C-alpha cells in the first residue's frame, strides 16, 4: 500500500484496506466507492476512491468519516489457458520479452495497468500472432529500457542464442524504446546469427486501443520469418498504422520523444518495408546477411567501463581527467561538426592515450561522416590519439568500443576493429539520399 502518514493511520483506524468498498462522509458530501491505491505520487491527505460510475476521485481525509460497506475480494487473476497447438506448417518464432510497454493489461475494476511480462500475456493480448507462426515466448527481464545495462545485453544475447540453438526460425525481442538502439547495436556485435533477430517495442503503451504494439509485433514476426539474418529494429514507418520499417541494428536511432515512427535509419536507408505480412527490401543493391544453416556464434565478453562524453562550448579537461583517474578503459567523445572538441582538452587526451585508453571520436551531427583532416584541431586531435569513428552513430561507437575492449586491450588492435565494418555499422559511401529520412 502506498498510503503514508496521516492517510495510512486514518485507514488503519477504520480498519479498511485497498479493494474495500467504503462510504466516506464529509460535512456536506458523501462518496461511495472502492478504495484504490495511490498511483505512486507522494500525498498523505487524499484517499483515492473509484466510484460506482467508474470515476476516480481524491477525497481529503480532514473531517471525514468512513464506513465499511463491503470487504473487498482480491481480484482473481485467472486468465484462460492458451490453446497453442503447434502447426507443423508454421514457422517456430521465439518472442523474448525484456519489459516495457509492448504488453500490459488493465484491471478495469481498479483501473490499474499491469505490465504483462509473460509471453502468454503478450500472446493473449495479440492472439493474431499465433496465426502467423508457432510462437513461443519467454520473459527474461522485467525492466524499463532506461535501466538497461551492458550485462543485460549479454543476458539477452545468450537467451537469443539458446532459442536459435533450440530451433527457432527467428527471434523477436520485445524491448523498451528508449535504449532499443543501444541493445540492437550490442546484439549486432555480440551475435553472429544465422536467423533474423528483430527488436521491437511500442511508443503508445499496449493498454490503449491505439497502441502501436500490435502492428510492430506482427511486422516483427514477418521479419523474423524472412531471410534477413541480422539484428534489426522493426517499428512504425510513419504515423500511420500501415507499414513498418526494418532498420539495421547498428544504423538506427530513436529520433523523437513520442512519435510512433521515432526510429530512423541514420546514414543509410531502412533495409526493408513490411506491410500486411509481406516484406520488401527497399534498396535492392544493398548487401545483407542471408539466412543460413550456420551455428549461432556468441562473442559476449564486454568491457562496460567505457565513458561516453559529449563535447560542448565550455567543456573543460577535468571531465576527461576524472574518467582517466577513475580507471575507465575507453572513452567515446561525441564531438562537434566533423569530429572536434576544444583544443584545451588535448593535453588530457594525450594523457589518456599515454595511459593506454582508446579515444573514439563521433559527431553529434549524427548525420554525415567524421573527418578530422579538414581543420587543424582535427589533425591535432588525431595526433593526440583520437580514433575517428567514420559514419558510425555515437551510440553504436560507444557500444562497439565496449564490445571491442572485451575482445582485446591492445590499442592498435582496438583502433583497427573500431574502423573496420563488422555489422554494417560503417559504410564507405554516403549517398545524397541519407539525410533526414
Amino acid at each position, binding site marked *: 500500500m502506498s498510503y503514508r502518514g496521516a492517510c495510512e493511520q486514518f485507514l488503519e483506524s477504520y480498519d479498511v484496506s485497498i479493494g474495500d468498498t467504503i462510504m466516506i462522509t464529509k460535512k456536506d458530501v458523501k462518496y461511495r466507492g472502492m478504495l484504490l491505491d495511490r498511483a505512486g505520487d507522494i500525498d498523505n491527505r*487524499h484517499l483515492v476512491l473509484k466510484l460506482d460510475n467508474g470515476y476516480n*476521485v*481524491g477525497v481529503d481525509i480532514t473531517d471525514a468519516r468512513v464506513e465499511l460497506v463491503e470487504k473487498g475480494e482480491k481480484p482473481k487473476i*485467472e486468465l484462460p489457458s492458451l490453446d497453442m497447438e503447434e502447426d507443423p506448417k508454421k514457422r517456430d518464432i521465439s518472442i523474448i520479452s525484456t519489459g516495457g510497454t509492448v504488453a500490459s493489461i488493465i484491471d*478495469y475494476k481498479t483501473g490499474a495497468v499491469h505490465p504483462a511480462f509473460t509471453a502468454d500475456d503478450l500472446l493473449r493480448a495479440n492472439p493474431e500472432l499465433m496465426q502467423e507462426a508457432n510462437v513461443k515466448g519467454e520473459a527474461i527481464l522485467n525492466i524499463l529500457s532506461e535501466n538497461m545495462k551492458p550485462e543485460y545485453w549479454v543476458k539477452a544475447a545468450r537467451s537469443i542464442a539458446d532459442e536459435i540453438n533450440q530451433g527457432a526460425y527467428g527471434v523477436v525481442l520485445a524491448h523498451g524504446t528508449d535504449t532499443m538502439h543501444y541493445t540492437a547495436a550490442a546484439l549486432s556485435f555480440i551475435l553472429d546469427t544465422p536467423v533474423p533477430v528483430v527488436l521491437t517495442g511500442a511508443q503508445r503503451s499496449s*493498454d490503449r*486501443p491505439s497502441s502501436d504494439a500490435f502492428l510492430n509485433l506482427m511486422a516483427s514476426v514477418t521479419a523474423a520469418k524472412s531471410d534477413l539474418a541480422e539484428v534489426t529494429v522493426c517499428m512504425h514507418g510513419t*504515423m500511420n498504422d500501415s507499414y513498418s520499417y526494418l532498420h539495421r541494428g547498428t544504423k538506427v536511432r530513436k529520433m523523437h520523444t513520442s512519435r510512433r515512427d521515432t526510429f530512423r535509419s541514420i546514414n543509410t536507408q531502412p533495409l526493408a518495408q513490411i506491410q500486411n505480412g509481406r516484406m520488401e527490401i527497399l534498396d535492392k543493391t544493398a548487401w545483407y546477411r542471408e539466412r543460413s544453416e550456420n551455428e549461432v556464434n556468441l562473442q559476449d565478453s564486454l568491457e562496460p567501463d567505457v565513458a561516453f562524453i559529449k563535447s560542448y562550448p565550455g567543456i573543460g579537461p577535468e571531465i576527461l581527467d576524472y574518467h582517466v583517474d577513475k580507471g575507465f578503459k575507453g572513452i567515446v567523445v561525441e564531438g562537434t561538426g566533423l569530429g572536434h572538441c576544444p583544443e584545451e582538452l588535448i593535453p588530457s587526451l594525450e594523457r589518456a592515450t599515454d595511459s593506454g585508453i582508446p579515444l573514439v571520436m563521433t559527431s553529434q551531427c549524427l548525420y554525415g561522416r567524421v573527418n578530422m583532416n579538414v581543420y587543424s584541431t582535427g589533425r591535432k586531435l588525431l595526433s593526440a590519439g583520437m580514433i575517428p569513428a567514420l559514419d558510425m552513430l555515437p551510440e553504436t561507437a560507444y557500444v562497439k568500443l565496449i564490445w571491442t575492449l572485451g575482445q582485446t586491450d591492445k590499442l592498435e588492435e582496438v583502433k583497427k576493429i573500431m574502423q573496420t565494418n563488422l555489422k554494417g555499422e560503417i559504410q564507405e559511401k554516403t549517398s545524397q539520399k541519407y539525410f533526414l529520412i
Partner: protein
Amino acid sequence: MDYERLGLKMGLEIHQQLNTNKKLFCPCECNLTDKKPELKILRNLRPTQSELGKIDRAAFEESLRKLQFLYESYDHHTCLVEADEEPPHPLNQEALEISLILASLLNMKVVDEFHTMRKQVIDGSNTGGFQRTGLVATEGYLETDYGKVTIDNLCLEEDAARRIGQKKGKTVFRLDRLGIPLLEITTDPSIRHPEQVKEVAYQLGQILRSTKVKRGLGTIRQDLNISIRKGARVEIKGVQDLDLMPKMVEREVERQINLLEIRDELQKRDADVEDHLFNVEDIFEETESKIISKAISKKGTVLALKLRGFKGLIGKEIQPGRRFGTELAGYAKKMGLSGIFHTDELPAYGISSDEVDSVLKFLGAAENDSFILVADKEEKARNALIEVQRRAKTALYEVPEETRKVLEDGSTEYLRPLPTASRMYVETDIPAIDIPREYLEKIESNLPELPEEKKTRIIREYGLSHDLALQLVRMDKVDDFEKLQSKYKVDPTTIASTLAYIIKEIRREGFNVDFDLNQFGETFELVERGQIPVAAIPTVLRSVAEHGYSPEIAAKKEGLEKLSEQEVEDIVDEIILENSNMVEERGIGAMGPLMGKAMQKLQGKADGKLVNKLLKEKLQKLV
C-alpha cells in the same frame, strides 16, 4: 398518456463546449476549420483485454466491425497531441475554473482532488481509443416548476474528433474538434414529465450561458435517458431542439409500450427464435431482387433466420412510420448491412412469392412463423444476422437497453448497446489536481449573474421594458449596454434598443457587420453633444455598416447633423410665411399640418420638441 401510471423516469445529460483559449490537453485553438487537411493519418483501434477477461460490450461490438480510421490533421491548426503522437500536456486551468464556476452555480459539491480518467471509446472518435474525462462535482440541484431536480455529476472532458464521412470502408474524422473542453452535466433520473425535461434543459442552458461557453450549432448536445416501469433504460443521443423533447419522450414511451405488447403476444404464442442460421442461397439463384443477385454475384451469400410465431408482429408499427422490423434492421445496419427482408413485407423488392414460399418450405415454417433474410459477403451477413437474432430473442422477454439516435420527427433509431460501466481507468499521463477550498471560496464569491437575475436587475435599474431586457440578455449584450450607459448621457432605452433592435434591423437589410463598442460610443457621443438627433441613429449606423465610415463622418455624409436653434427658427419662419393663408384661416389650428411640413423639411436634423416649441410660440404671437 398517464405518465405517472406508466412510471416514466427521465434523466438529462448535457454536453457543452467551453470557449477557452486552448484545448483541454494541448495548446491548439478551440475552433473548427474548413481548410483542406494537410495530412491524413491511418489508424486501427483494438479493444484491450482487461485482467478480468472482460471486454466492454459496446467496445467489443465496435471492434467486430473491424474499422480502420482516417484522421484529418493540420500542420498548425492541430498538433501531435490530438494525433495521439504526443502525451497530453497538463490540464487547461481555465477550463477547470469554468467548470468550478458552473459547479457552484448548480449548488454542487466539488471534489477535493480531480483525477483524469480514460473512458474507452473505440468507434474511432478519439485517436487514443479513449476519451479523457474527470469528475469535478456531485450532488447539486436545480429548482423547477415541477419540483427539485438533482444534478448528479459534473464532468470535465475532451470533445471527440469530428466525423467527416466514410472513405473506402474507413471512417474519416477531423482532429479540429478533438480536445475542445467539454462539460458533461448529468441529472438523476427523477424527471417525471416531458415538459419538465424541457424546463430543466432550458434552465441548464441559461446557466451555462452565464459562463464562458461556446455558442451556436453543435456546441451544446443533449442526451436523454428515459424509461418506463416495465420497459428499459434507453439513452437518446443528439437532441438539438428543446421544443422537440416532449414529443420525443412521447414517441419513446409509445415505442416501449408497443414493444411490450409485442412481447406479450409472442409469449402468448410461445414464440421462439431458432439458433441455426440457414443458407438459402440456392433458392435465389435466379432472383429478380437486385440486392440479392448483386450479393450472390459478388461471391456473397443469402442467410435466413427462422422466427417461430412472429408472423404479423415484425410489420407492427411501434412508432409512426417505424415497424418492429425497422428495429431489427437497425441492428443489421450497425454491422454494415444496408438492410434486411422480413416476411411481413414480402413478396416485394424483387423477391417473388414463389421464393418466399420456397424459403418457408426450406425452413419448415408453420402458419405463424416468419423469417428474416440478409444477403452480403458471408462473414458480414452472418455477423449482421447474429445481431438481428440477438435482438429478436430479446423481444421475447424484454425491451432492450440501448443507445438510440433521435430522428427529425422525434422518433429514434438504434445506435449501439448501452455502454457497460467497466470501461474507465486512470489517465497515467496527467497527475491528480488538488482543488484547494480557498480557491473554491474565491470562485463562489465572484459568481457570474444568471440570465434571469440579470434581466430583472436591468429592468429595475434602467427602467427598460421587459422585452428589451430579454433581448439584451439573449443577445449577450448586457455588458455592452452597461458600459455605454455609464459613459454617455443618453436615455438607457435608446442605448438598449439600438443594441437590441436597430442592429437586428440593419443585419436584416443584409449588412452582415459586427459593430464594436467604439462605433456605438462615437454614435452616442454625437447624440449626447446634440450633433445628431436620436432619430438619426439608424441612418448613421447603416452608413457605418455600408461604407465603413466613422459615425461622425457618416453623420456628415448623410447630412444628419443637427441644425442650430437659429437655423431651425429660420426654417419655421419660412414655413409660416409660405402658409400664411392657412395660418389666417385656422389660427392655432394650423399647428398640426405645419408641424408635419416642418419635420418633413428638417428631415431629422432637429428634435421634434424644439420645432414644436418654436412653432407654438410663433403661432400664438401671430394669432
